[in-house]
């Protein structure tokens, strides 16, 4: 209060601007690679016309209604498949991450590398390879059928299970890595403290390890659910007659039908639906708590 106002006015601007200048590159990045494309897409989704005659801005919101009316089945299916794949990733990924973090000892990095190894192969080839592995009379199902453990017409490929399985397989590391990082950060002395305070293995896990790893689970669920719901490769390669996901529709609309407004509107519908789903999830889990633990 007692500082002379003149001096204050002279010194203030630089000091006050510094933090903003420091985040400027981040803002520019966001503006150039997120805000601008989103605005372009939003604009596109409101245009009408066709590829040959051009698209004109008419603020036609009806495209959204049409898209939703035509493709709500695929949209809901995408969320269901994405959600199911995320649950699979969590059920498989959490124990894997736990094992690597607490039991793998000094070979941790080896196991993490092994986990990532398939991802040095192209996404499509990797997915396509399941067509060979899970072929109706292939290396897995063939012997089982031969032994009479499965009926002859049993198949996994071309079913929703194949698509969900493919999604879970492809996005597993997106679950394992953040969960691993969260578990790795758990101070081993907390586990001793829990044991010292009469917690057995189950209680130590449920009361200490699990809550402390929730930020990782939260991140893992987001990183898995969002891209899995928007994926189109798995449905195209592993799917059957009724497994089309919204990503496949968007791909057809954009690349085959050159219906840019329709494709843009569908993309926004997907984005909106995912945001709502993520928001509800965050609410259910109590983000504040999660972020608070994460911030420690």
């Amino acid at each position, binding site marked *: 209060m007692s500082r002379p106002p003149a001096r204050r006015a002279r010194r203030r601007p630089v000091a006050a601007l510094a933090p903003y200048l420091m985040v400027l590159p981040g803002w520019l990045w966001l503006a150039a690679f997120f805000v601008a494309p989103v605005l372009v897409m939003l604009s596109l989704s409101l245009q009408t016309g066709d590829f040959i005659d051009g698209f004109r801005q008419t603020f036609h919101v009806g495209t959204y209604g049409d898209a939703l009316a035509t493709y709500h089945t695929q949209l809901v299916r995408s969320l269901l498949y994405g959600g199911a794949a995320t649950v699979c990733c969590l059920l498989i990924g959490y124990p894997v991450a736990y094992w690597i973090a607490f039991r793998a000892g000094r070979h941790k990095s080896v196991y993490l590398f092994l986990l990532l190894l398939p991802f040095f192969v192209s996404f499509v080839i990797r997915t396509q390879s399941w067509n060979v592995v899970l072929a109706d009379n292939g290396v897995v199902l063939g012997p089982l059928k031969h032994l009479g453990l499965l009926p002859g017409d049993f198949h996994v490929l071309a079913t929703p299970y194949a698509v969900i399985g493919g999604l879970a397989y492809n996005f597993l590391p997106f679950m394992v890595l953040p969960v691993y990082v969260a578990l790795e950060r758990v101070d081993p002395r*907390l586990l001793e*403290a*829990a*044991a*010292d*305070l*009469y917690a057995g293995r189950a209680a130590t896990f449920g009361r200490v390890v699990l809550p402390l790893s929730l930020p990782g689970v939260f991140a893992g669920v987001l990183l898995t659910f969002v891209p899995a719901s928007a994926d189109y490769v798995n449905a195209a390669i592993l799917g059957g007659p009724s497994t089309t996901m919204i990503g496949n529709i968007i791909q057809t609309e954009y690349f085959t039908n050159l219906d840019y407004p329709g494709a843009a509107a569908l993309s926004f519908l997907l984005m909106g639906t995912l945001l709502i789903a993520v928001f509800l999830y965050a609410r259910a889990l109590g983000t504040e*708590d999660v972020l608070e633990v994460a911030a*420690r």
Partner: protein
Amino acid sequence: MAPDTLAAPPPAHDTATTPPGPAISLVDVVKDYGGDRKGAANGAAVRGVDLDIGEGEFFSLLGPSGCGKTTTLRMIAGFEEPTGGRILLHGRDMVGVPPDQRDVNLVFQSYALFPHLSVADNVAFGLRRHRVPKGEIHDRVDRMLHTVELADKADRRPRQLSGGQQQRVALARALVNRPRALLLDEPLGALDLKLRQSMQLELKRIQREVGITFVYVTHDQAEALTMSDRIAVMNGGLVEQVGPPREVYERPATAFVAGFIGTSNVLSGRLADSGTGSGAEAGARTGVLDLGDGQQVVLPLPEGAAAGSPVEVTVRPEKITLGAAPPTGRVSRIRGTVEEVVYLGTSSSYAVRTATGTELTVFQPNDGTAALTPGRGDTVWLTWATAHSYPLAPAPAPAPAPGPDAPAPR
């Protein structure tokens, strides 16, 4: 009473300071990580420890880092299994019993508070595991938080508290369970000096209030002396001396203890005269270390010491008085030159170099009772009562070069 030294004292003979029925007994406990473990290639972290810790006692394990004190504590808690010997909690052998089934609680050096739980939930953690009724949990947590003066912080998260407050939460979280014994692993190590001193008093108060056995690990000799009923000084995986603070301080049993606790002067030489002392020594046998040139050290004669045998003697700095002329009679007297004088307020510290080259430290009170207050370069005579000469036991079987920070157990 004979100093309760090293190598296997028969348990529970020390009735003067230990209440009957030890709370914790360690019988020849060994922890050997095996040669393959880094940093412990030289063998065991704990090489055969026998201790009896009495009910309600404040017992400290004191020693430098790597001496095995933390490993010993963790074995009592159950986080490490001994490779040999027995650990008895109230007479029951605990070897093989997991930590969650031992009726002791540990206060961690880093507190290890659960970051995702409130202060109250941290404190209630153990009670909930024991399925104590809800109402009782609430009451006990509340009372315990009052005891550690944190009742108003019950809903905070640990990271919202200061270091001293976190420390008290850690203490409350352990004490609320009313364990048979509380184990504390350098609990004040992370606090600054002032806070540490107030927490020392606080800990002592709490211990008196709850009346639980405390086993306290520290490398800080002042802390151990301040708080403990008894101290076990450890070095190289062995206990060098067990006793009340005064005894350990004034009558160190080994050169290590003498050196580790307080400032000590050690003089060595060969025993010149094994005859009995004068009447003034009340019949005790005394011996003399002749340092030549009229200088000598008179000491109570160690058991079985023969003329000519090598002896080390220690004397505490504040027991020595300075004089301008050599004292006469059968008393210790050494001549030296004052090399440094440090004024310390209530006392002054003199560094005196003897004719044989040994540097001795002398404290003299500044209350006007000092016979002489010499300056740098002055020649002085040092003397002290024979009772303050402590012959040191020969060093125990040398621990094979304990590494700088040997087995650092986790």
